[in-house]
């Protein structure tokens, strides 16, 4: 029944221009919310409605393109800039990859908007919140649908700006602003790297249009043809990787994400789980042909993925703030996606991106509901035994943690399994082992999180329960977190992975049992109430502190970049060059003083200087 219903939808033709409507709807609604101050009801209708319609259109596109695999839909607003070679238009480009992305953004986005109507109910700046959120969704949609790199860059920066505004939403206290500044600047560093990559690409390939650029790149830098060719390709890819690393909080630029939890929780759910942080993955997936040209760049991507994966997983183990645990887990899951991209399995990475969006959004929203009900308490060790009190939240938390830990028969399981499989196909066994260890730690900290919060003795009485809309959002998100088993076929066609080699039985069974073993270990340790207890030996304590601060990156960057820069600027506070001109002025005054010394009014000194001068003049004449 399901298939023929879907087959009916196939011949339902949708006009291409509908594609333009998707990013336009949230943008228009955010403009309205900025300039007009409607009553609360209208604000909710506009905010949630616009994203809802966009989701509907995305659904229509999904249905109409259900069967086909290689389809491309183009639509555009017209020309942005044309100077002889540089031709840039506001064109949107829909293919399998961007179809998956817009479905996630609008789908998950809609439920997060629905959820935040409840979460932000008593907040005074309700209108400003939805204006920023809608602006963010439209910027993300522009990023995903952009046909040329500059339009993608526009979406890229727009997303950065909206995340800055949303992180610093409660602007009254200083730390939120600092977190927002940090987030914006770290991503800005990555963006500048990407911009330089754009300039290089423009000069090497003559165009910024993504599709022509890729075909041109393949033509100009035939893989492995000459050293100059693929070194230029590697440089371009690394610069693009810099942008991706900045936005997706990967290794060098990852310590802004845990601080970005200062924003409201639905914001973290939308931005720091489902959409913005996946922009980096999308960028690399979109430019697969370019990355394919330089194997070294691919390896760097894989390396960055693995290191981030392990670093973030270990850091998540020791956090005691609910949202920071989820933030580090997001960084580690995106590390998985980078690893998959690095080994050439783009479609699997996007599949993991999709499942991750569902279960991480679910986890964040349930964490939000948890915090909302336990009067804004973030520390997990101050919560306990909430299983009975908050059944829906507990259920959604359980499903989320299961999917995160990739227990069998959850969506996380299928996507992570396929990543591990692809790593085996690519032949990087050491990366495979790192991924499995990562999976073990992931399962361990998700178990720890669930047991500490929901089992055991009740420490705080939840003062008010989540509203109806929050419950609806949680329940709806539970379904895809479990049942998103199938990889969208369009993706496989778009990004053909490597030929699959057979899995040895170790490689087959180990990934299935690791999560279960890790959960049992976590339960054992919970029972022995090891979590939260004082660590005896100082060595363990120092490791605990190191991991808690995210391997000390904050400390390193603070002392390596921030302090020298500040010191350099402060010593030059009043502008050395200005000092030069002030010195000029002082010497002029000094000379004045010296010369007036001669006019001392005494007649005899005048006559003496007169005679002296005559003597000098004559001697000059004589000696010359």
């Amino acid at each position, binding site marked *: 029944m399901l298939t023929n219903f879907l087959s009916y939808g196939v011949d339902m033709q949708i006009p291409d221009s509908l594609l333009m409507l998707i990013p336009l709807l949230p943008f228009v609604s955010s403009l309205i919310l900025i300039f007009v101050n409607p009553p609360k009801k209208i604000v909710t209708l506009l905010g949630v409605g616009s994203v809802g319609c966009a989701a509907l259109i995305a659904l229509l596109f999904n249905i109409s393109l259900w069967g086909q695999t290689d389809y491309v839909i183009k639509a555009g607003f017209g020309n942005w800039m044309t100077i002889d070679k540089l031709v840039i238009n506001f064109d949107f480009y829909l293919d399998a990859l961007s179809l998956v992305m817009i479905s996630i953004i609008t789908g998950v986005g809609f439920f997060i908007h629905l959820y935040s109507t409840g979460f932000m109910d008593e907040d005074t700046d309700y209108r400003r919140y939805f204006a920023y959120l809608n602006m963010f969704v439209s910027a993300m949609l522009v990023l995903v649908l952009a046909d040329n790199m500059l339009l993608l860059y526009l979406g890229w920066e727009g997303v950065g700006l909206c995340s800055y505004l949303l992180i610093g939403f409660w602007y009254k206290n200083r730390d939120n602003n600092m977190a927002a500044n940090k987030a914006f600047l770290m991503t800005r560093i990555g963006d500048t790297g990407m911009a330089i990559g754009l300039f290089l690409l423009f000069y090497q390939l003559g165009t910024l249009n993504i599709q022509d650029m890729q075909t041109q790149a393949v033509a100009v830098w035939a893989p492995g043809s000459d050293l100059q060719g693929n070194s230029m390709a590697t440089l371009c890819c690394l610069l693009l990787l810099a942008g991706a690393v900045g936005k997706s909080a990967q290794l060098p630029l990852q310590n802004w994400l845990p601080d970005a939890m200062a924003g409201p929780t639905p914001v973290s759910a939308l931005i720091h789980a489902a959409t913005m942080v996946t922009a980096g993955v999308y960028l690399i997936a979109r430019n697969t042909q370019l990355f394919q040209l330089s194997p070294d760049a691919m390896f760097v991507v894989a390396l960055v993925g693995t290191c981030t994966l392990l670093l973030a997983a270990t850091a998540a183990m020791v956090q005691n703030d609910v949202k920071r645990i989820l933030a580090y887990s997001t960084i580690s899951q995106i590390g998985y996606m980078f690893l998959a991209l690095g080994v050439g399995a783009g479609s699997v990475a996007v599949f993991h991106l999709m499942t991750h969006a569902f279960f991480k959004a679910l986890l964040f929203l349930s964490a939000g509901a948890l915090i909302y009900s336990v009067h804004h308490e973030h520390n997990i060790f101050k919560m306990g035994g909430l299983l009975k009190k908050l059944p829906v939240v507990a259920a959604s938390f359980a499903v989320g943690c299961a999917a995160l830990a990739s227990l069998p028969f959850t969506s996380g399981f299928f996507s992570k399994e396929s990543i591990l499989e692809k790593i085996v196909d690519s032949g990087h066994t050491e990366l495979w082992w790192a991924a499995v260890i990562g999976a073990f730690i992931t399962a361990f900290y998700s178990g720890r999180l669930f047991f500490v919060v929901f089992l055991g003795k009740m420490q705080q009485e939840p003062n008010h329960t989540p509203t109806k809309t929050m419950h609806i959002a949680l329940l709806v998100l539970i379904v895809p977190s479990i049942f998103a088993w199938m990889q969208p076929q369009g993706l496989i066609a778009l990004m053909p992975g490597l030929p699959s080699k057979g899995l040895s039985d170790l490689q087959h069974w180990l990934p299935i049992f690791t999560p279960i073993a890790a959960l049992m270990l976590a339960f054992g340790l919970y029972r022995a109430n090891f979590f939260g207890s004082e660590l005896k030996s100082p060595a363990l304590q120092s490791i605990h502190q190191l991991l808690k601060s995210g391997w000390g990156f904050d400390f390193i960057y603070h002392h390596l970049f921030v302090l020298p820069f500040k010191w350099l600027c402060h010593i030059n506070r009043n502008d050395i060059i200005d000092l030069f001109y002030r010195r000029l002025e002082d010497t002029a005054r000094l000379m004045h003083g010296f010369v007036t010394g001669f006019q001392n009014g005494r*007649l005899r000194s005048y006559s003496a200087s007169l005679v002296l001068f005559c003597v000098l003049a004559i001697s000059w004449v004589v000696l010359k």
Partner: protein
Amino acid sequence: MISIHWLLFLSLALFSIGVYGVVARRNLLFILLSLEIMLNAVVLLFIAGSSFHGNPDGQIMYLLILTLAASEVAVGLGLVIHMYRQHHTLDVDKLSQLRG
């Protein structure tokens, strides 16, 4: 037969004595006196020149310098009196209002 050099040495000597007088003395009267000596030195040279070349121009110039000296002394002494009336002293260093 007198050599022009002697005359030259004499007038230069007188002139430098005059300069010494102007610079060294602090009494306004003595400064005027030294000026007179300098003038005489110059005049001596003029006359020496006129007699050396045998034409009367030097002497005519002498006449002009003479009138000049006379008028200069007249005005100078007038100023001396005026200064004395105001400051009751002839020390030239007291007159230092025109300071830079």
